[in-house]
């Protein structure tokens, strides 16, 4: 799957979990850019992404993400493997 497509799907998941339809993700989006995105929502986002793609992240993978681009890359890697 391409990065752009994943980004689009992540946007949908973010909108659903954070209950904000105005969210538009780019690769450089971070938690600072989205008001609702706190540590609790972060956990929900991770679980939602895992469920959507039927993949599992490790605790250290999650901690290594610096922005949405890193998230999308991690998804692409898991799906590619």
């Amino acid at each position: 799957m391409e990065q752009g497509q994943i980004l689009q799907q992540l946007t949908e998941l973010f909108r659903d979990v954070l209950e904000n339809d105005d969210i538009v993700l780019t690769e450089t989006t971070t938690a600072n850019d989205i008001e609702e995105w706190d540590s609790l929502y972060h956990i929900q986002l991770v679980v939602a992404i895992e469920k959507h793609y039927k993949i599992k992240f490790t605790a250290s993978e999650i901690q290594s993400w610096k922005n949405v681009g890193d998230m999308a890359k991690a998804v692409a890697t898991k799906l590619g493997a």
Partner: protein
Amino acid sequence: MLTDIRSFNTLKKNLKKPVEGLKSIRIAILADSASQFIHQAIKGYGIESGIHYEVFEADYNQIDRQVFDPGSELYEYAPDYVIILRSVERLLKKFYGLSTADKENFADQQAAYMDGLYQQISSQLKARVITNTFPEINDNVFGNFGTKTKASFLYQVRKTNMGLMELAGQRKNLFLVDLSSLVGAKGYEASFDPKMYISADMVFSLDILPYLAKHIHDVIMAIAGSFKKCIILDLDNTTWGGIIGDDGMEGIQIGDLGLGKAFTDLQLWVKELRKRGIIVAVCSKNTESIAKEPFLQHPDMKLRMEDIAVFVANWETKVDNIRYIQGILNIGFDSMVFLDDNPFEREMVKQNIPDITVPNLPEDPAEYLPYLRTLNLFETASFTEEDSERTKQYQEEANRSILQKSFTSEGDFLKSLGMECEVKAFDNFTIPRIAQLSQRSNQFNLRTVRYTEEEVRDITQSPDRYTLSFSLKDIYGDYGLIAFVILNKQDNNTLFIDSWIMSCRVLKRGMEVFTLLSIIDLAKTHGFNRIIGEYLPTKKNGLVQDHYQKLGFTSIGDSRWELDINQFTNDKQVHINRK
């Protein structure tokens, strides 16, 4: 009641819905792991079920401080329920810090610790305490040999659960949510997300939270007096496989034939519910004589006619028939569960009787029972031996209603019943039943004050309070304890009716007047001249809206009613003899 478990996300979205008009319940959550998600799940589940939980959530891992510091926020908040959630992961850490000798005593110490928490809370609050059992995980330090080794965690965590269960049995206001069996059903791997635990100290996965929230809610609802009392069964393809009218008694599937085992297991389960006090009724589109045949004659039938309180088989609609059953049982639709394999019938009942619980039975009868078990439909907060007698009483009631038709006047009918009532102050034998009645009764309940056994016991000790219990029987059977009143001395001249509760099974038998006469007797004996009653309306007690007026009381405003004993003359005939 919900029969579908919503996802955590859905529950969380409920938090944005308005809560005006919902019943409020104040709870405190004390947890030794991160509890924000639990908080949201309970609140969201509550809103979905019509309850607004007002929540005090203690800071992370503050159980001891909140409980043992008398000036803590917990006591300031004064909740109705204190929910103490403890994780097996933290338990394990405590365990590892101990010497071998202390490990062997770990479970006992844990029970003592929980009792300490409970006693401390009870000394300051009137709250019920709800805590969890622990998932019984094997840390595999000993492997399976842990089952033979007292110093293993497996051994001690199981014993801890047993210890908590014994403790809860002894402490009236301590209740357990059985997380152990919940996790057993879902699997530890599905209930615990190591990643969430490592990064946020959350010990419950998002997927298990709705179930945990449901079980906590179920326990609270049962304590608060809202629970299921009756199960109504469809017959063909619900109680047995096949269609009795087509296949005949020999052709239906029960016992070990084909799918029969699924239906037999379901019947056995329903029979256990019946023994516990759940009323079983039948509602079937059938010819009555044919529908009854298996109950009377089939060797593999587990349910028999004597298990069924009301049996309705005819060609009317299920909606009408369920209303008829409700009329005889005189319990709320919200305390009834209807089982039917046919989605069309289910939908029709749901549409017309929205309060009744109608589980969406799976298509495969093999899955009926496993599915029903997951719904935890029959949560309860009490059990007495009298519960198991209930079926007989309702059958007698059905007989009485048939007999009533043959009398020309109501008075003649009542006289023919030969009713005898025993009236006495509460005693050790009646206190559990009185507490239970105060929990259960919604309709004939003037002020809807709920009492625990302990509180009832305290009332009997108070010099300024008077109690009366009423046990009724007639020629058809024994109703047992069916009514009680609690009276408070308001001043030297005045008695206030704190509680007046009656089981609806004995409506229209003159019990109201009989009870009033007993109250007046008691008042005279103790030198009171004036009785004050109060009606506090709820959604369910409209039945007694005009209660005091009908009995000759005069309104004095603020929903209060007054009776001057010296002015009172009874003009109603009572056909109940005092025993």
